């Protein structure tokens, strides 16, 4: 039985702090531009659709669809070697942006493109932002 990937607290800077603080609250935080309405991820200081500074953060639904994935059978990095096989995926969030993640909670062979998934948060050691550090991943909805 392969071990799960052991996540660690992630480094952040002031552009990405709100995202990781959200993870600590078990909320998937995205950015929206108050001027043009564009939703973006990963977080940036400016809206890259209109270059406005008027960025606000909001908690996304945490729901999405598997856009694509791969079952990783080989990774030489010690942190991941014992977790093989694991599922690396892009999830297209219902709000539009797409993020890279892992799919857990089912056999790797059961993952399909188009599968509906929901976020879950894995609490990890250490602090990221003001909340407890956590890393988002997805499981079948």
């Amino acid at each position, binding site marked *: 039985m392969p071990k799960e*990937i052991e996540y660690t607290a*992630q480094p952040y800077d002031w552009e990405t702090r709100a995202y990781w603080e959200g993870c600590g609250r078990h909320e998937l935080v995205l950015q929206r531009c108050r001027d043009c309405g564009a939703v973006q991820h990963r977080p940036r200081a400016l809206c*890259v659709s209109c270059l406005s500074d008027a960025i606000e953060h909001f908690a996304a639904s945490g729901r999405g669809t598997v856009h694509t994935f*791969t079952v*990783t059978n*080989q990774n030489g990095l010690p942190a991941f070697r014992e977790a093989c096989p694991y599922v690396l995926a892009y999830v297209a969030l219902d709000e539009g942006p797409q993020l890279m993640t892992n799919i857990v909670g089912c056999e790797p062979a059961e993952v399909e493109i188009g599968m509906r998934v929901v976020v879950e948060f894995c609490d990890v050691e250490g602090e990221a932002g003001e909340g407890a550090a956590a890393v988002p991943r997805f499981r079948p909805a």
Partner: protein
Amino acid sequence: MSVSGKVAIAGVYEHPARWAPNKTENQIMAECARGALDDAGLALSDVDGLFAAGIGMGIMGVVNLAEYLNLKPDYLDGTNIGGSSFVAHVSHAAAAIHAGMCEVALVLYGSTAASNAMAIGTGMGSGGRDPHGAFVGPYGMTTVGSYAMVAQRHMNTYGTKSEQLAQIAAATRFHASLNPQAKMRDPIEVEDVLASRVISSPLHLLDCCIISDGGGAVVVTSVARAKDLAKKPVIVQGCGEAVCHQEVGTPDLLTVAAKQSGEKAFRMAGLAREDVDFCTIYDSFTITVLVTLECLGFCKPGEGGSFVEDGRIRLGGALPVNPDGGGLSSNHPGMRGIFLVIEAVRQLRGECDGRQVEDAKIACVHGTGGILGVSHSGATLLLANEAG
């Protein structure tokens, strides 16, 4: 106004080493410089432009290389956009030469990726421990994994089969069997690819490029200067570059940078896809070749699977791809773009003996740099001999 037809490749050299634990990377580059300058009939003292990139070449890399070679060029370019860098260096050199900034440009690459036991595909993809990498780093993305996600999406969208990707590996190995310098020369069939272990689904071991040591050099100069040199000039007819990233908006993993860079290069050259006699395409993985052929316009999106069947991309087929055996079978010292240029030039000069593309006049060269499914660069060149 355009640089098309004004600049030529006058010399090339591919280092024969595939395993060079007793050489330094600077040494490999210097040996390649000697080889390419000999090929062109030029001396080191003729070089007034230096272009280089490398995995370990950070800030000042090209300056340190100039110091190693005791060169004091008028023009320096250390552009590093991944494995496609050297394809881009040729177009940057063409622009610089056309603008009068330098006259003889030397493009260099050397690497001991294999003897350093560098696990390019499965040991270094996951992003650094920095705020930018934090959106990738936790999840165990490998280089092969990012390309595998493109393959999975292509299969789901278009019904592309592993057997079709395997045709690319088998054709490329056939070409390598005809190249005495290639590292992997034993022929393989589609079944062998499918029987090899899955590294990152749906890509098998034999869908992945090899890792070798090696290096190469290219000498670029004006057409006027090239006419008096040792070898027949190969003319730069078109060039283009592009960047593709999948982060913001609605990502489209199946439209890669080759679409933008290819359209620009073909427009500049005034050439049609039907005019191209063969391609050298960065084959980090079989899927890279398939989506590149689609995005360069040699077939429609989704038709890449059927396009590569029936021997079309083999020597003797309508559009041979990577007649040297590519990165899948000949060599892949980390960043392979320079060999795409070198093989295209050798083919256009008719120097390739058993693997010669018959009546080769026009080549399409395309390099991909970086991580296909995340962010990558593309650089396209259209090269022609005097008959083209």
